[in-house]
């Protein structure tokens, strides 16, 4: 049976309605109901991605060209750096992640999206919150805590907006269709419930009922690592567990393993925060606990990696044709690499060298971009056509997007990890003046600008392509936008 042929057949007409047809209709209805909120989240996210990319280029350039715009207060490096990160995290990451999560929730609850206005309001307020936060930071309102720089009014707006999204999610879940709750939904439920607790705790413990002294730093990094793992990581892993099986048409290899992976992931990654403060002014047990937790995260990482590999076995060639699969598998592999690097830099002997170097920055990019962002790109390539009813117009643009992002982030991470190591070695050698360490990493930082140019190209291409879809200029051909044209007319190759 030729699957592609089957799907392009004309239906038999309304007289004979099969279960399969009904399911198709349902699925189309569900997809259609998610269109407006998800496209709003996606569109906003892409706009923030471009903002972040622009500031990203500027920050990399200013590292070796410090006098560029040096007299302008709102362009000083110490202000545009947090704007770059926070627009990436809260603008791009959170909104794209929420967009995908919304679509997945609707699909997995097997019910059309209810109360879209709640989500649209959530998106609007989130955008306002991010904008206010970024403008605040540029204007000189940084709180002093990484990833939590936004001033209070902005944080409050974000939190309120999130509560709208969470409420929607819980209502959807309440009205879900009976049946087993798929693994993706565990990850999404986790993410949706963990985030507000995480964000509220951080805001309260740092600003409202502040903890004393260095505990603020502990809370800061507990928040940051948990955001990376339990919010972005969960959404990313959950998405991959849906996309990979769905695209290749094979169920997850071992669901039991997936369940173990989920629980061990939640348990261990939530304790890793202090690996950012190794040998800092803290009780030793806190730091040791985080290092141990980092090492233990190898367990869930191994289960996820094994599962995806076994699911994909014999189907790797499909990556040639499916954009979603390419991005998602890249992301899944990056997740494994990200975890391994995380363990390595947490070991005390290594931490001694790289603790204050750019290596940790590279590691964060691995998690946030190489893993999470690439998986989300993949999900967007799958979801957007199902929302607008058209296919992506240019396979070449998809390919360009993929390779520019892959090489861009690969180069960034490599330069920062290696450069950071070199910098750390120099820092650790007290016979060398301090200046040596920064000089030693400068060549790598110059290279990093090149990598960001690649990423800029990639994001502009994707934004343009998405814009085409948004405006209804997608392809209406019945043949899907495979990345490499099918060899025969009957559409045989998969």
């Amino acid at each position, binding site marked *: 049976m030729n699957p592609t042929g089957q799907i*392009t057949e004309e239906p038999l007409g309304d007289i004979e309605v099969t279960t399969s047809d*009904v399911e198709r209709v349902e699925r189309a209805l569900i997809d259609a109901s998610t269109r407006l909120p998800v496209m709003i989240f996606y569109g906003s996210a892409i706009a923030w991605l471009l903002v972040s990319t622009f500031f990203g280029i500027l920050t990399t350039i200013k590292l070796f060209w410090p006098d560029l715009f040096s007299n302008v207060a709102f362009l000083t490096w110490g202000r545009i750096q947090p704007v770059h990160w926070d627009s990436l995290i809260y603008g791009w990451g959170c909104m794209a992640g929420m967009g995908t999560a919304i679509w997945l929730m609707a699909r997995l609850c097997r019910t059309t999206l209810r109360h879209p206005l709640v989500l649209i309001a959530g998106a609007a307020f989130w955008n306002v919150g991010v904008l206010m936060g970024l403008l605040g930071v540029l204007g000189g309102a940084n709180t002093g805590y990484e990833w939590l720089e936004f001033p209070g009014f902005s944080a409050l707006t974000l939190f309120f907006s999130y509560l709208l999204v969470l409420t929607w999610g819980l209502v959807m879940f309440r009205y879900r269709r009976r049946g087993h709750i798929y693994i993706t939904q565990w990850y999404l439920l986790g993410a949706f419930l963990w985030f507000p607790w995480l964000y509220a705790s951080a805001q309260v413990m740092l600003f409202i009922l502040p903890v004393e002294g260095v505990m603020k730093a502990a809370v800061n990094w507990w928040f940051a690592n948990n955001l990376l793992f339990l919010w972005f990581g969960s959404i990313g892993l959950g998405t991959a567990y849906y996309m990979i099986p769905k695209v290749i048409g094979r169920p997850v290899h*071992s669901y039991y393993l997936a369940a173990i992976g989920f629980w061990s992931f939640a348990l261990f990654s939530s304790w890793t925060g202090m690996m950012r403060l190794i040998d800092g002014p803290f009780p030793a047990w806190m730091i040791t606990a985080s290092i141990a937790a980092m090492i233990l995260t190898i367990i869930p990482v191994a289960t996820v990696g094994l599962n995806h590999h076994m699911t994909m076995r014999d189907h790797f060639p499909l990556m040639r044709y499916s954009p979603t699969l390419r991005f998602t598998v890249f992301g899944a592999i990056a997740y494994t690499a990200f975890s391994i690097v995380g363990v390595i830099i947490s070991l005390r002997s290594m931490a001694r060298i790289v603790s204050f170097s750019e290596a940790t920055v590279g590691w964060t990019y691995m998690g946030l971009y190489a893993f999470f962002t690439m998986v989300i790109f993949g999900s967007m390539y799958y979801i957007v056509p199902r929302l607008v009813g058209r296919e992506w117009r240019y396979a070449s643009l998809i390919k360009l997007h993929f390779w520019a992002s892959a090489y861009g982030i690969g180069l960034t991470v490599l330069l920062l990890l290696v450069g950071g190591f070199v910098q750390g070695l120099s820092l650790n050698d007290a016979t060398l003046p301090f200046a040596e360490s920064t000089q030693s990493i400068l060549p790598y930082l110059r290279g990093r600008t090149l990598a960001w140019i690649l990423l800029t190209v990639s994001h502009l291409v994707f934004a343009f392509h998405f814009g085409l879809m948004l405006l209804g200029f997608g392809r209406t051909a019945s043949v899907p936008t495979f990345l490499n044209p099918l060899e025969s007319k009957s559409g045989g190759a998969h």
Partner: protein
Amino acid sequence: MRLAEIFAKVKGYDEHAAVIFDRDEPIGRPTDLVLPPSRRSLFRRRAAKDSANSPNDAPSGTRS
């Protein structure tokens, strides 16, 4: 008996893995595909309506 229960439970897990498939998008068929032409017209018609309409009840099977 206990061991058999555990085995049954673990075996049951693999059924959970199949919930995202159904007769329309079954196991064995890749789905990174566009909606076929017939679905597109349905899509446009439905998109104009209130999205809060609940779908028809299906006679059987699970889908997501």
